[in-house]
């Protein structure tokens, strides 16, 4: 009985293979969608994203409106569902704006690091030789820099500035990216299809763009999903030290740091932003893990 089932299963597999239906990417996607934690995380993250982007437009309270109802507990009165902060501003409205800022920092800084890291690594790996040596030594030197300190210096010296935070964090995170991409490129560049491209006279940057980069997308995608939470953490780290975004804007880090001061009497002021951040980071990490397992199944 089981044998026949096995056989029919195998027959189907052979048939789809003959029709050429399943590429490596299809396989990876199927594996990703079989991972329950990753799928649930994608839904939750989607909802979180939706709330962060659209929520502030529809919520009855504005995150800047100060009132005399200071530090209210969560209540349905006036629809202060999460209470109010030390200046009487609606906590839910502030949470949504904070979430938006944190996600934005995570995304933008990761994109910055993605662009720099992929270009740097692909060029170094592909050109090779002395250029590669110099470029990667440069990465080595930067690796030894205590970057968080430089970011702190920058922020204290030039004033708090959200664009500076984006750029500074992005500029730190590209190093690992460039190493990953370089390793992949080194492995790829001696393969026949690259040689064929070169032999037919495809220009240098076209080879990198059309042949190298698509083939390093897998490991890079994994690293990107795992970088976003790191960046969100880095931003909140700065916020906690009092170097985050300026009032009245806020971020999850600022909210958590404010909440921590009041946690003994008003634990909800810490709980709401802390839980939001935890859930966001958990989802991103689960998706990253799921992607990694899907693209590189040998570790399962």
């Amino acid at each position: 009985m089981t044998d026949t089932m096995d056989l029919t299963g195998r027959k189907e597999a052979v048939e789809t293979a003959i029709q050429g239906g399943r590429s490596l990417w299809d396989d990876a996607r199927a594996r990703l969608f079989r991972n329950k934690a990753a799928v649930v995380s994608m839904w939750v993250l989607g909802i979180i994203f939706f709330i962060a982007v659209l929520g502030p437009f529809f919520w009855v309270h504005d995150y800047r409106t100060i009132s005399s109802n200071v530090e209210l507990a969560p209540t349905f009165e006036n629809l202060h569902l999460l209470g109010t902060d030390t200046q009487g501003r609606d906590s839910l409205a502030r949470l949504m704006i904070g979430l938006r800022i944190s996600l934005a920092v995570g995304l933008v800084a990761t994109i910055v690091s993605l662009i720099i890291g992929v270009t740097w690594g692909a060029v170094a790996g592909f050109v090779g030789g002395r250029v590669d040596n110099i470029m990667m030594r440069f990465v080595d030197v930067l690796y030894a820099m205590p970057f968080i300190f430089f970011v702190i210096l920058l922020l204290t010296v030039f004033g708090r500035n959200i664009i500076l935070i984006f750029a500074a964090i992005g500029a730190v995170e590209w190093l690992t990216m460039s190493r990953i991409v370089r390793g992949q490129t080194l492995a790829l560049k001696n393969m026949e299809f690259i040689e064929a491209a070169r032999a037919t006279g495809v220009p240098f940057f076209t080879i990198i763009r059309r042949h190298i980069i698509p083939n390093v997308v897998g490991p890079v995608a994994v690293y990107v999903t795992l970088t976003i939470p790191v960046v969100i953490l880095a931003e909140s780290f700065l916020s906690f030290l009092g170097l985050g975004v300026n009032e009245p804007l806020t971020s999850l880090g600022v909210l958590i740091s404010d909440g921590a001061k009041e946690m003994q009497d008003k634990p909800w002021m810490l709980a709401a932003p802390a839980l939001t951040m935890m859930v966001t980071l958990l989802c991103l990490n689960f998706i990253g893990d799921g992607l990694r397992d899907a693209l590189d199944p040998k570790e399962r």
Partner: protein
Amino acid sequence: MSAVQRIASRIPWAYTGRRLLIAIPTLLLIITVAFFMMRMAPGGPFDGERKLNAATEAALNAKFGLDKPLWQQYTDYLWGVMQLDFGPSMKTLGKSVNDLIADGLPISLAIGFLSITLAIIVGTAMGIFAGLRQNTAGDYSVMGFAMAGISIPTFVTGPVLILIFALTFSVFAVGGLGTYPNIGMSFHNMTLPVITLALPQIAIISRLMRASMIETMRSGHIRTARAKGLSERDVVLKHALPSAVLPLVSYVGPAMARVMTGSLVIERIFGLPGMGSYFVDGAINRDYTLVMGALIIYATLIVLFNLVADILYALLDPKVKYD
């Protein structure tokens, strides 16, 4: 060959030498960038709430050499650093940066060292446990814990631990280094900061260890060991563990650096007067010399930890060859 000679012969001396040589331009770059960044910024160390009168300001500037041309300040500073003299603090009167570092560094190093040790022990144990029970309830609960450890920032765990263990149950100190006459680092006031700092590292190490353990247990030499009829205990402890632990070694160097920088926040939460607090306060108050001193110490530590990790790796893994 004695054991010492055998170990010495496995240390990649040429590589170590070259890495130390690279460290010099790295540190020089850090010093230079930080130096000029601080000087170019608007505002100086003596712009306080009140404007100082011109004579006082000139005297202060002369005392700290701020009246000299910039390039001369720079070369003077470099000359001092080469003699391990980081100059006087510009804000803490009567103290040199060396004094402040001597006060703060032991605290930061103690927290960092204890945390990473705790993280390695607990993380490795949890990783082995989970790896040997892949896809069982035990594995899932350990990995769930690890996932939470990665996703919860230390400045959430810190206050929560304080709330539970210090404010509610009064088991440990809320923070600080105690009050007279019990000043100093003790079990009572170091436990919470060390645990808080260790938690994310425990999470990462256990995940690494689990993956590595799973891979090792599938490899050929484990099958051979089992085929020889060794007990499962010997298979795991004597054959799997030594090779499974290797990826960890290359992680611990950078992790040590991360723990050191992470202590910035820990020191803030628990009110500990370590290097991190000096650095942040110095940066906010424009205490040029203090910030530079702290930065150089941190950078040197990071370079050293990474180097030690690489050498350890070469010692442990006979396959690794540094050119």
